């Protein structure tokens, strides 16, 4: 039965996250945007303690109480709330993160247990993922970081960039980075494998933390692997090079993370839309739906379009999550959600700043920050273009060789 209403327990839990967003994130949002590389210690500790308490009480990771059949969907709803608060701060929350997602997708049960156990106790920790390299952006298959086997170790060499929470994972906590490297350059995509590089491993170092347009509370690290040696069992899954397999792990990770990134985008867009809505309400400007353009103001039409774009993105996102929760293959739908949400939130926030005029452009309010935060959603976890390419391949039945 088609239905668009969230379960009561998800709504209830979403309120909890909304409260965190409103009371813990919004008040420090501007500060950590301006103080780019400073740590929001208090917030991080609070979020970590909250997660530990939840786990101790037998609840599930960041989702908390939830229906098992709506795991990803619930996450999307909660992530939207938190990113409504602050997307940069959200990305900085301690936990397994994208590195954890890679382990969940590619690791053996034993590896999952071994690498993820640390998130159940102690001090805040971060898991991160490193794919992108200076010479390869969207083209993950062009990875040049190498993993060479030497006795009981894999020796990693290369440079990784745009690694979210990389510094926190490697230098500020007992965390790890999952590094994608090729074990056999001749094997192309099939040779690309994920390796867990622990905090403190000799040969790995953070060489730069980027200054960014937005999401400044999040650390985006460049990482050097210089004869970095990791034990053999840090390679996730099987070391065997099977045609296409290595890449499929990356892809499986993306199928799960893209809808969540889409939800992040929607959170930022909704923040902007709510700002405009509240403001217009204060000004007693009513939005009239479904009337003719000769009566409707340009402002009303803009607002309605923004709202509908965002809702369209949200529905696509929820569907991609729902499919995953149902065990259905969702790469097409995940890419649709990501492509739509990234573009929608970019446009919505840009338009919101315009509509608010001098108030939109001023750093007195957070609206301008959301416009800056928003743009990353059109770029990371596969740019707009990469996602359209994936969609095009699917709908046309073309391989990545036939359509590139």
């Amino acid at each position, binding site marked *: *039965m*088609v*239905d*668009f*209403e*969230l*379960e009561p327990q998800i709504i209830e839990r979403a309120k909890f996250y909304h409260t965190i967003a409103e009371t813990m994130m919004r008040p420090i949002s501007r500060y950590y945007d301006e103080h780019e590389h400073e740590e929001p210690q208090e917030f991080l500790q609070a979020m970590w303690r909250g997660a530990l308490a939840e786990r101790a009480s037998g609840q599930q990771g960041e989702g908390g109480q939830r*229906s098992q059949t*709506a795991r990803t*969907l619930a996450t999307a709803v909660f992530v939207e709330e938190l990113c409504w608060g602050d997307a940069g701060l959200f990305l900085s929350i301690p936990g397994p993160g994208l590195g954890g997602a890679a382990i969940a997708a590619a690791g053996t049960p034993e590896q999952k247990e071994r690498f993820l156990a640390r998130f159940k106790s102690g001090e805040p920790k971060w898991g991160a993922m490193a794919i992108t390299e200076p010479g390869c952006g969207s083209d993950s298959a062009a990875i040049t970081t190498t993993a060479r086997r030497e006795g009981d170790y894999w020796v990693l060499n290369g440079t990784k960039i745009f690694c979210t929470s990389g510094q926190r994972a490697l230098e500020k906590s007992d965390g790890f980075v999952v590094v994608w490297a090729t074990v056999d350059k001749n094997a192309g995509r099939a040779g690309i494998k994920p390796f867990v590089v622990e905090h403190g491993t000799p040969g790995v170092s953070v060489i730069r933390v980027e200054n960014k347009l937005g999401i400044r509370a999040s650390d985006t690290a460049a990482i050097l692997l210089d004869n970095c040696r990791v034990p053999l069992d840090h390679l996730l899954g099987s070391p065997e090079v099977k045609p296409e397999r290595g890449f499929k792990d990356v892809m499986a990770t993306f199928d799960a993370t893209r809808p969540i990134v889409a939800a992040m985008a929607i959170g930022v867009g909704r923040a902007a839309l709510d700002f405009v809505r509240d403001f217009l309400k204060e000004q007693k400007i009513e939005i009239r*739906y*479904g*009337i*003719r*353009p*000769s*009566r409707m103001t340009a402002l009303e039409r803009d607002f*309605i*379009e923004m*709202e*509908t774009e965002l*809702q*369209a*993105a949200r*529905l*696509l996102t*929820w*569907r991609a999550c*729902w*499919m995953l929760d149902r065990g259905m293959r969702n790469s097409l*739908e995940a890419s*649709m959600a990501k*492509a*739509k949400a990234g573009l929608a939130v970019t446009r919505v926030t840009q338009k919101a700043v315009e509509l608010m005029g001098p108030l939109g452009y001023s750093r007195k309010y957070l609206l301008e920050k959301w416009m800056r935060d928003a743009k990353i959603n059109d770029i990371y976890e596969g740019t707009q*273009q990469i996602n*359209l*390419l994936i*969609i*095009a391949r699917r*709908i*046309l*039945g*073309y391989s990545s060789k*036939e*359509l590139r």
Partner: protein
Amino acid sequence: MIDFELSDEQKMVRETVGAFARERIRPAARQADESESIPQELIQQAWQLGLGREPIPEELGGFGGKRSVLTGAVAVEELAYGDLAIALHIMTPALFAFPILEVGTDEQRRTYLPLATGDEFPFVTAALMEPRFDFDPTALTTRARKIASGFTLHGAKCFVPLAGEARAFLVYAQLENGAHGFDSVKAFIVERGAKGLSLGEREKNMGLKALASYELALDLELGPESIVGGEDSSYGARLLSESRVALSAMAVGVAKAAFEYSRDYAKERHAFGAPIATKQAIAFMLAEMALEIEASRLLAWQAAVALDKGGDAIKEASCAKNYASSVALKVADNAVQILGGHGYIREHPVEMWLRNARGFAILEGVAIV
């Protein structure tokens, strides 16, 4: 609980109607457009599918099913995927029947629903639109005034499908009762041959050429029993939303037709040594079309479900319709573009879909589910 899966019954409706649209409607579409007429036989076959009378009680000639806006939306998407003009023709009896079913008095249902049922396709229709550039369903210029013997009705209507043969009409007018907007919008039942009901020439439009639609001039006196649901009920908003959902779903159907046709063409057609679908400019265009069609459908479904839950869904339905209308236009335009010169000639259906798709932003109240 969030769910994107249709019920088994809805899936069956989709399959049955979809098959009919592919096998029977689509092959007849071009000829219908060029000749500006639809074979009676096709309409009769479509009527046998039962779409327009399914939710009408058995004792009044229907099948006694449960009415669902979502199921209706699923069905009309498929019909419009076949052809929009034919789809609108097929669904015209519902324009008359569904509002009476939903908001009419028992007396009205007993008297008039049998006109919209039976084994023969029934000619009954409704009139909402008006021949004005800024037609607005919330501000009708067709006026109803209460008089001692009932009501007077004055005004002009356009886009009244099948008016030429209709035995009865549902005419929407603004009742001058002090209320504003939707609260004052009422439907009146007008029988053919009523004094003061003048049928204009059959309309000629850019698209939907196969659909016989007409202008009406109204200068009528009606009895007190003509007002649907009585004077005190308020239903304008909900009926308009039901119509907007129907049009949204139809827009999705037209867009899907244009998308699939141009996608297949792009895979077949070679230029510069490869299928044009392998060029990013074309491939990305198709990817966006596919994505936006999905988005439109979800917005339409959301509005449909809101109506099925009893709301008037003014916001959801108007947003869905705006969105789906512009997506349908854009997709049809892209389809013509992808076919290039071939898209511009009437050998291929895409130019017809472009003409039909342009209609959505203009049409209100010509379909209901």
